[in-house]
């Protein structure tokens, strides 16, 4: 039996694109929320930004379809202005995974920022450093371990996205069929061996990533103590 490897490549590309988008969006959003002065703004913004994490992915997918469907407002906009069809294309797998993975990145980055001693930021200000250079040279480097683990988690989440992807990207073999969808389709077709092949691949990739992340965090901790 030859395993069709297209789901592996589609998933890896989706996860990589997702991580690239979510990494920067999550960091900047987290910085924005952390620097709000009013608690109420923080609480509400945090709620809105975290919702995709707790919603059933199919519900998130429903909203995406509602907005990005080919005849819906944003879907029409991209189609008419840029000739880009989002729904049921590879871009839709990225869109779905990005929406679901975003809260993971955002929350990791926010937690990491909040753990940085405020006195370091205050010291930077009294030394005349601009807010921007405090962000790049003090806040970000000292929050790096948490931010890196957020990136790894969002990559893994992008790899594993199923519900929202099925809704907006569909399950088109060779085009939008990602690893989790391939597992589902194989089982539905009674091809347990094929499903098993995909399961082994996804398990191996996820395990390597999470163990690698833990090893990196352990090293960071050692370095701080040493």
């Amino acid at each position, binding site marked *: 039996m030859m395993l069709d490897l297209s789901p592996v490549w589609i998933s890896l590309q989706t996860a990589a694109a997702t991580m690239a988008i979510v990494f920067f969006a999550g960091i900047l959003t987290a910085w924005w929320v952390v620097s709000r002065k009013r608690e109420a703004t923080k609480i509400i913004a945090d709620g809105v930004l975290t919702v995709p994490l707790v919603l059933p992915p199919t519900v998130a997918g429903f909203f995406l379809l509602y907005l990005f469907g080919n005849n819906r407002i944003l879907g029409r906009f991209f189609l008419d202005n840029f000739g880009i069809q989002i729904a049921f294309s590879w871009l839709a797998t990225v869109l779905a995974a990005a929406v679901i993975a975003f809260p993971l990145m955002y929350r990791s980055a926010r937690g990491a920022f909040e753990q940085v001693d405020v006195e370091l930021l*205050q*010291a*930077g*200000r009294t*030394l*005349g*450093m601009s807010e921007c250079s405090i962000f790049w*040279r003090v806040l970000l480097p*000292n929050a790096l371990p948490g931010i890196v683990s957020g990136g790894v988690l969002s990559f893994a989440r992008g790899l594993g996205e199923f519900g929202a992807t099925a809704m907006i990207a569909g399950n088109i073999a060779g085009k939008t069929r990602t690893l989790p969808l391939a597992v589902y389709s194989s089982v539905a077709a009674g091809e347990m061996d094929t499903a098993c092949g995909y399961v082994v691949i996804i398990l191996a990739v996820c395990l390597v990533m999470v163990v690698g992340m833990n090893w990196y965090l352990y090293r960071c901790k050692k370095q701080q103590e040493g």
Partner: protein
Amino acid sequence: MQVEINISKKLKEFTLQAELVLQDGVLGLMGSSGSGKSMLLKCLAGIETPDSGRIVLNGRVLFDSAAKINLPPQQRRVGYLFQSYALFPNMSVAENIMCGPRAKGLAKEHCLAIVTAMMNKFQLQGLAARYPRQLSGGQKQRAALARLMAVEPEVILLDEPFSALDTQLKDKLQEQLQQLLAEYGGISVLVSHDRQEIERLSDKVLFIHQGILSEEGATC
């Protein structure tokens, strides 16, 4: 050199009310923890904002609630030595000291010259490449002072500078700090709960209790 301060800020349990004029020399501000002494320093540095009042440094208005002026810490030229020293853990000693001159937009050679001068002045020779976690308590304090002096502040605020140190070290470091402050000659404020430390280092002493300043203090 002169700082005029007249501010009030409501805190959890009392209201900080400070009206004083600082002139060249070291003012010792003595009070127990939670007396509002650190808050007063933070208001001066622009880290905290008073509810109302006015702060004028050498004729420059740093804060004026009536005129809605509140300069950010970056523009105040007020040096702050944090209790924990707040050295950037991701930077070497030299990089820490470099931050201030670099933020001023000085040419690289000029920045490096300032760093070298400060390293020499604070006896940090040979420690340029060390990270804060590799320094002793006394070295950390000197590095933080060097970083602060590299921006040539008009006022120096010292928040419990010896609380993070061993008793044996304190004596020697107090002597060094005393020398440094005398050499600096400008305005500095030293905040502490330790009477001996205050008396040794300050030219003038004020007491603070529940946010109120007085010349005569209850024995703490």
